[in-house]
């Protein structure tokens, strides 16, 4: 046989046909044969005939081909790639999910709840951190704040003197621009023609408001607005209220006259875009700072009336500037109190502001609560993760054989790890999808409690990326331990059934312990927070808040206060009326300009003061411990008599009785103490009761009236007060508040936190119990035979339930012992924020312990009872 290489190749399309027709391994040998023959045919008969023969032989392969035995397939394994393996892993994983419905439900459901909590809290915290970051220059904007030492205590003050800003700009090159802002709480309402509107937030600001910050003008010249002392800029909302929704086309509204409540005429110079939601500076109208500069008494170095913002240059050394500012005030004023200045970054204002004397009243968050929520979210996620890890390792027995077989066939440990990780991540993906559905449920609740309007930002690339990263991280956390654990089995042992699964027992138990420890901490925390809330709201404040109204008098009514008071007193629905210069919830007028008889040198007191009338004590129901009340008949009472509280007497070194008749001087006006009133709370419980002084200066301005309505006639009282108010002032509506509601409002943050922590601790317990239920089910399955044997030997149902529950209760007890001190310490720390707080009492722990034991017993005993009632014949029959 002559064998020369083929001069030409056979037709390609026939080869393709063969390839389609034949199994891969057959194709190779057949094609080889065909080509060899073709070469020969070409030599012997010429190309044309050869092609024909080639075609003929090839197409006869259309015949029925015998199926070949598997061992015939020589190439199978060398061709399998990782894609096929992963597809196989997922298939096996999916079968496992389907076969073990209870465990899969617990695993995925628990993880979904945990993830939903975590994402909810993540969104909340992210939202909290968004404040003020929309300003292009937010990294370079700072607020100048003061630290004042008054009477030996350091106070943080957010406001600074008016002349500070221009002085800073001339003295420091790094400071490029400054902007002063102050609240024009006195401005009241605005009037255009007949239309009167009382905006919520009126600010006084510099023209630089539109240059330092990113607030934008819709109409008006940003270079010029507010430079004239009598100009005003209003927000879009306000413009719509004044000129209708179509204000832009309502003719030239700029230049229109707006009348302030005190009669001052302003010119409308601009309409600004509404401040974004994430701005701590909110405004409806802006007045010009120039007016203050020219006219106001407030504009001086010794009065703190402005928040001073500075824009520093990009390359400024902020630390150095901070240092230079520290004692800057001394340059301009001789200070009575040690006062230093410092810079607070704009982005820190929202979350990190804790200032005294109500100097910082914008929209504020609280970093403590952000941290609390972060901790709570992490705890719930951890609990869910532990569930996942626990159940995966507990169920290892059912996978051990599979691992053994895979290893025998030649799987590497690495491949098995990949297998279990891919299983975990596919479960995590399902859980993440479920959690997004849960999120739809959680977010409205959170929004409702926290007063936010957070939506799921699906369109946000950062969110989607974060979600993907989060999914990956959770898959790794949940999957890595089970993967390492399952893949370490020795195939020989596993397949013979000798592999002991005890090694993971300790680990699993520690996880259960940590889960329940975390739950115990959450539950204890919830109870303590609610207790403290209840304590603050129910504590005897030292006055009677029931049916007590505070009526705020606008400035034009204040001179008519006494007339209004008389009118009100004549009403049958009203018991008593008293005039006052402050409310009872947060009295913040205070001074160190105060001296007393036999004062030691160096001693000083920051005293809070209130201007009242003789009816005040009886209207509010306060108790005089010594001395007498003010008496209008005694003329000296209106000029040189004071009533002080217990704390003031104590701090000046007197007992209650000693204090009567002592000489004190307030704002350099000397007088005698005529009475001592029992201590009452006039600030939130976070602060201790401070020294306080009542004076009776009827000629001085008061700000409102306290009205005590008769029981059950409150509604009637309000409507009659409104009528009388109308008689004297047509333009504004009656501004009143119930004192008890005002008191409640000040604890809103605590209340919100309590609700949120409450919901999350419920979820934490649910997730922990899900996991425990899974473990109990698993144990019950594993111990079926044991229980059967015990029953045959005479164990009662009670014996078996006890045996079963004992193991779990032991873990719960240990977790309780670990968690209690931690919970005690954490709550102790939290309570230290309050000057008046509950004690973390032992019964709280007892209650938590009992609660957890009850819940877990219920969870476990369901399985225990089920296991105990199984007929031993059933469990022992199939051996």
């Amino acid at each position, binding site marked *: 046989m002559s064998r020369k290489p*083929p001069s030409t*190749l056979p037709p390609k399309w026939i080869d393709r046909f063969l390839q389609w027709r034949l199994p891969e391994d057959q194709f190779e040998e057949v094609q080889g044969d065909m080509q060899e023959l073709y070469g020969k045919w070409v030599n012997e008969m010429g190309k044309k005939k050869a092609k024909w023969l080639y075609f003929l032989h090839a197409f006869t392969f259309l015949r*029925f081909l015998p199926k070949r035995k598997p061992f015939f397939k020589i190439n199978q394994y060398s061709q399998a790639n990782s894609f096929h393996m992963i597809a196989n892993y997922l298939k096996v994983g999916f079968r496992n999910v389907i076969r073990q419905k209870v465990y899969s439900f617990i695993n995925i459901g628990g993880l979904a709840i945990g993830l939903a909590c975590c994402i909810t809290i993540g969104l909340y915290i992210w939202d909290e951190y968004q404040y003020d970051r929309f300003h292009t220059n937010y990294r370079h904007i700072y607020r100048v704040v003061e630290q004042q030492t008054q009477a030996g205590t350091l106070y943080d003050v957010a406001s600074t003197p008016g002349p500070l800003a221009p002085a800073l700009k001339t003295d420091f090159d790094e400071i490029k621009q400054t902007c002063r802002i102050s609240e024009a709480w006195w401005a009241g309402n605005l009037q255009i023609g007949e239309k009167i509107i009382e905006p919520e937030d009126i600010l006084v600001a510099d023209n630089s408001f539109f240059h330092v910050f990113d607030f934008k003008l819709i109409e008006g010249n940003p270079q010029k607005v507010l430079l004239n002392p009598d100009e005003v800029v209003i927000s879009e909302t306000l413009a719509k209220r004044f000129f209708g929704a179509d204000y832009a086309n309502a003719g030239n509204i700029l230049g229109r006259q707006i009348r302030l409540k005190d009669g001052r005429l302003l010119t409308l110079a601009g309409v600004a875009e509404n401040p974004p939601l994430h701005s701590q500076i909110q405004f409806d109208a802006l007045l010009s700072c120039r007016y203050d500069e020219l006219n106001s008494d407030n504009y001086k170095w010794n009065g703190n009336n402005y928040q001073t913002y500075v824009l520093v240059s990009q390359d400024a050394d902020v630390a150095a500037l901070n240092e230079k500012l520290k004692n800057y005030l001394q340059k301009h004023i001789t200070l009575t109190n040690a006062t230093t200045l410092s810079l607070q970054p704009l982005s820190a204002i929202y979350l990190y502001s804790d200032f005294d004397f109500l100097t910082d009243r914008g929209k504020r968050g609280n970093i403590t609560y952000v941290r609390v929520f972060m901790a709570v979210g992490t705890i719930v996620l951890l609990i869910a993760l532990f569930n996942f890890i626990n159940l995966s390792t507990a169920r290892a027995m059912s996978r051990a054989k599979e691992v053994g077989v895979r290893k025998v066939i030649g799987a590497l440990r690495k491949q098995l790890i990949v297998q279990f990780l891919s299983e975990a991540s596919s479960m995590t993906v399902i859980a993440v999808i479920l959690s997004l559905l849960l999120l739809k449920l959680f977010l409205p609740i959170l929004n409702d409690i926290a007063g936010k309007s957070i939506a799921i930002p699906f369109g946000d690339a950062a969110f989607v990326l974060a979600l993907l990263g989060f999914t990956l991280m959770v898959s790794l956390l949940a999957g890595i331990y089970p993967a390492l654990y399952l893949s370490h089995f020795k195939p020989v042992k596993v397949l013979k059934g000798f592999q002991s699964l005890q090694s993971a027992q300790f680990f699993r138990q520690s996880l259960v312990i940590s889960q329940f420890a975390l739950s115990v901490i959450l539950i204890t925390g919830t109870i303590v927070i609610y207790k403290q809330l209840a304590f603050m709201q129910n504590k005897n404040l030292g006055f009677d808040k029931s049916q007590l109204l505070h009526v705020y008098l606008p400035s034009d009514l204040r001179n008519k206060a006494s007339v209004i008071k008389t009118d009100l007193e004549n009403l049958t629905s009203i018991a008593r009326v008293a005039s006052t210069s402050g409310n009872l919830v947060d009295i913040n007028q205070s001074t160190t300009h105060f001296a007393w008889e036999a004062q030691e040198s160096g001693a000083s007191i920051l005293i809070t003061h209130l201007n009242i009338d003789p009816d005040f004590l009886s209207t509010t129901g306060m108790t005089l411990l010594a001395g007498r009340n003010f008496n209008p008949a005694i003329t000296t009472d209106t000029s040189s008599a004071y009533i002080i509280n217990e704390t003031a007497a104590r701090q000046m070194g007197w007992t209650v009785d000693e204090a009567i008749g002592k000489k004190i001087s307030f704002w350099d006006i000397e007088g005698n103490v005529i009475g001592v009133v029992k201590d009452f709370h006039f600030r939130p419980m976070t602060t201790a009761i401070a020294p306080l002084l009542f004076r009776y200066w009827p000629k001085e301005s008061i700000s409102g009236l306290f009205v005590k309505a008769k029981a059950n006639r409150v509604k009637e009282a309000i409507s009659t007060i409104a009528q009388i108010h109308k008689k004297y002032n047509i333009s504004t509506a009656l501004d009143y508040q119930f004192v008890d509601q005002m008191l409640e409002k000040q604890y809103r943050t605590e209340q919100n936190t309590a609700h949120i922590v409450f919901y999350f601790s419920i979820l934490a317990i649910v997730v922990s119990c899900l996991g425990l239920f899974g473990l109990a089910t698993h144990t019950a399955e594993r111990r079926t035979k044991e229980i059967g044997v015990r029953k045959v030997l005479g164990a009662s149902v009670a014996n078996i339930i006890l045996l079963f529950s004992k193991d779990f209760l032991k873990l719960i007890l240990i977790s309780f012992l670990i968690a209690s001190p931690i919970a005690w310490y954490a709550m102790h720390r939290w309570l230290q924020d309050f000057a008046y707080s509950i004690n973390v009492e032992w019964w709280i722990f007892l209650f938590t312990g009992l609660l957890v034991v009850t819940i877990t017993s219920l969870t476990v005993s369901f399985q225990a009872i089920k296991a105990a009632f199984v007929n031993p014949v059933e469990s022992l029959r199939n051996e």
Partner: protein
Amino acid sequence: MGKSYLGEFEEMVLLTVAHLQSDAYGAAIMEDIQQRTGRMVILSAVHVVLYRLEEKGLVTSTVGGATAERGGRRKRIFTITAYGIHTLAQIRQQREELWQLIPKSIRPSTL
């Protein structure tokens, strides 16, 4: 193993595998039969028979070397098994017995 019945073409292929020895692969077997019998043999028929014989345990196969004529494809070399030889021997013996029964008058003198 029970008795296996071989068809005429199967027997021919099996015999060819036996005598070609280490050169017994699809194309070579086909050519050999074609040359000896002069009849047209289709490659697919040879392959199908080879697989069937393998399934019956009469031959085994290994993958052999590639040559340039085959465009680099490997051959599958078939080898007859002991069972295969035994089967062939049995068939031959049956035939021999039958031959002996034919009267000498009509039997060809040379075989």
